[in-house]
């Protein structure tokens, strides 16, 4: 009994660690490719007269895109497992094939979306396509492989009833949702609009005026990947890692307590703890950053 709990906790920790890496890689991948909501500005910039060398591959929102890629990787790995192929090899092969699909989507998305901006004078840079696509594919492989492996552990070691492809779509969509929610503002505001004031939102009038120049020459998406890897990526990773770890942890340890109510009570306690942390951060920001204008000015 104790051994099985220790085993369960070990797998839970491993799944949480894999999820952390997945979240970080997912966010950096989407930022290098300008996927997700900040893509609107990359698409808008040439229309406002700002020609740029940023990769532009909004295949879909991050959650459905990752739902597809991870379900595909998990489904293929599942098929290889059914063919009695070694699990590690099956997971690598499934993820590799899914990455090629991601690469095809990235290429067609860049060519299609950028070509649609031809009338605004935005060129299709073939060197960007050659150098960026492989980088997004490499990051996507890390995200897909770690998530598929996590799903495999949840299914094979922890005994979740869902088959691997179904777990793939569930956690793929959750990965995209957590990654885009956490990482998008950091890339969208803090990187694309580095020329705007720190500590304030981007004025709507500045839309489209994204930063296009780097320390030397024109900025490209590899610079953006470097920037996202400083905070947006790790924060997305910790976010998704905590979601997976705490969800598994409360089930593995407390499922048997009180005929199922133990896991529920523990889940509610965790929700309340995060609620308190959120409120603390909100109050801290109000105290330390202060109001933008005095209250009486706004009421007048």
């Amino acid at each position, binding site marked *: 009994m104790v051994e099985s709990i220790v085993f369960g906790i070990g797998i839970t920790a491993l799944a949480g660690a894999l999820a952390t890496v997945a979240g970080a890689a997912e966010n950096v991948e989407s930022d290098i490719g300008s996927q*997700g*909501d*900040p893509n*609107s500005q990359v698409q808008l910039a040439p229309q406002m007269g700002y020609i740029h060398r940023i990769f532009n591959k909004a295949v879909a929102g991050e*959650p459905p895109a990752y739902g597809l890629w991870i379900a595909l990787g998990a489904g293929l790995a599942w098929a290889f497992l059914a063919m009695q192929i070694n699990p590690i090899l099956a997971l690598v092969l499934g993820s590799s094939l899914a990455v090629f699909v991601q690469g095809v989507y990235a290429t067609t998305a860049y060519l299609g979306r950028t070509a649609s901006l031809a009338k605004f004078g935005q060129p299709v840079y073939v060197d960007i396509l050659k150098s960026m696509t492989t980088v997004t594919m490499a990051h996507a492989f890390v995200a897909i492989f770690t998530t598929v492996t996590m799903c495999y552990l949840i299914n094979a070691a922890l005994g*979740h*009833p869902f*088959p691997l492809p*179904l777990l793939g*779509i*569930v*956690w793929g*969509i*959750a990965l995209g*949702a*957590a990654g885009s*929610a*956490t990482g*998008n*503002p*950091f890339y*969208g*505001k803090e990187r*694309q*609009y580095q020329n705007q004031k720190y*500590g*304030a*939102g*981007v*004025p*709507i009038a500045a*839309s489209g005026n994204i930063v296009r120049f780097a320390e030397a020459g024109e900025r490209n998406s590899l610079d953006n990947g470097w920037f996202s890897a400083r905070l*947006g990526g790790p924060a*997305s990773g*910790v*976010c998704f890692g905590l*979601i997976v770890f705490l*969800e598994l942890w*409360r*089930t593995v340890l407390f*499922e048997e307590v009180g005929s*199922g*109510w133990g*896991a*529920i009570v523990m*889940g*509610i306690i965790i*929700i309340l703890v995060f*609620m308190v942390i*959120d*409120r603390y*951060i*909100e109050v*801290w*920001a*109000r105290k330390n950053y202060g*109001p*933008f204008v005095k*209250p009486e000015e706004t*009421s007048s």
Partner: protein
Amino acid sequence: MSAVAAKPTAGGAMDVTATIIGIIILLVVIALTYFLVGPGLAFMALIGIIVGGILVAFGVHFVPVGGAPAAMGQAPGIATGVAMLAAGAGLAGLFGGAWAAQTTDNLLVIVVTGAVGGGLMMAITCMFVTFIYVFGMGIPNASGKVAKDPITGDTQTEYKSQGTEGHGLPFISYVGGVIGGLFGGAGGTLIYIMLLNLYNEELPGMMNALPAQVLPIAVTLAGMFAIGMFLVNAVLAAYNITGTIEGPHDPKFKRFPRAIVASAVASAVCGIVAIMIVAV
């Protein structure tokens, strides 16, 4: 009347004709199911699916979603799409609920476990949104729709930076996100468990196999239908919201009755398909 001549309906108003037609379709589907399969497990499954769908659609309205403007700190909410974020939370809940269904038969425990799973996902995600806004971008939370946070009483207007509609997740939006996750997780799990019970009952006879042999098929089928119906209801609710919403304090929240009628009809139509594959 052409589309150009048609008057745009007011934001929150219920279209009486559409509502009546929707309710008629709903009643027809329910009556048809009752007529075809009788008052047994399959009929109960349909009712469960409709209730689950309504919970999902209602829950989506609580989730604060800012879309692209939120990614630039131009509008409050989470910087992603309505349907997608709700799906992420609801499916995380479905994951927990499906797991609980393995060890207990208590419907309440299973559904509440699913709800808490969805709420947990949203609680962590929303906390990290605030974290990134405050520590990554130095921006305090500010609502664009209300002058004071209805829960904490914090004034909002003076924390709104110039030229924006607000930014981040005020506490009311955070609470809305968690409530949305709870409803989404509960709804998705309810759909799953009703279908699983039905398939577990019907498939062994249909396939002439032992219950243990059909269990993986039943789980897979129920899981696929639950994910599909979840997305149907989440997308329907997203169309009702049209773009972005701040949470329960947003005026757009009042549109939810329209989504409830629509999702009841959509769930009933999808539900009868899911039931007919085994019950007739």
